[in-house]
């Protein structure tokens, strides 16, 4: 019997770590991963709530989130590949010009 608040705290911690990673990683791919991490944290919260409230909606939301994440990954990684090709660098601090 696990209290829901445990799950929520876990998800909060993961989310915070995701934020930290998002701010402190320089590699653009890793930053993208940080976003995924945050999404996962949110998913966890969703499922926890849907369990504790006895509704399945939360899990449906999780499915949607996963779909969105998939689409995001497809496009985002494409962009990343292009950027890396053009700038010869994955460090977001080196990729700071709008023009090529």
């Amino acid at each position, binding site marked *: 019997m696990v209290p829901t608040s445990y799950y929520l705290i876990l998800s909060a911690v993961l989310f915070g770590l995701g934020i930290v990673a998002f701010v402190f990683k320089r590699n653009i791919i890793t930053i993208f991963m940080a976003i995924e991490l945050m999404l996962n944290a949110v998913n966890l919260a969703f499922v926890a709530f849907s369990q504790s409230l006895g509704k399945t909606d939360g899990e449906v939301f999780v499915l949607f989130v996963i779909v969105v994440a998939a689409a995001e*990954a497809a496009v985002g990684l494409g962009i990343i590949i292009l950027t890396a090709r053009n700038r010869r660098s994955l460090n977001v601090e080196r990729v700071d010009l709008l023009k090529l």
Partner: protein
Amino acid sequence: MSASLIIFFVLALLAIFAAVSLILQRHPIHSALSLIVVMVALAGLYLLMGAEFVAAVQIIVYGGAIMVLFVFVIMLLNAEEEERTNFSKMARFAGIPLALAIAGFIAAAIARNAGSLPAAEPSGALTSTKTLSNLLFSDFVYPFELTSFLILVAILGAIVLAQREN
């Protein structure tokens, strides 16, 4: 201290450690591996909560597709260890406190509301995939169709991005 609680703590700690290592690892592929671990751990937690289908999807889609894409891209671009540049003053100085602030807010919110939430069901009661799919195709059918559109658009975008100029 029941079995499910033990499992929870094991998985939770695993997830947190993996997330921390995601931050600490210098090489993107190690970060990716850590993230995969996080996801698997979360899948385990879903199972623990009885959301079996979500758990499976979590591993299949996140672990099996998205993260594979990440690893694939890392290998393709043959990314090397990240250089710890610090051009951004903002990130350097304001980053940590702000992250803490956010975490603090969330923690505060949870702390205030913890009592008002019923405890999660033990892993015994599984939400059958049937009910999930029924919900998905009755109440959430429009969002569902929209997601299909989203996927289509994403595919097109990926193709456009990937093709060479000619």
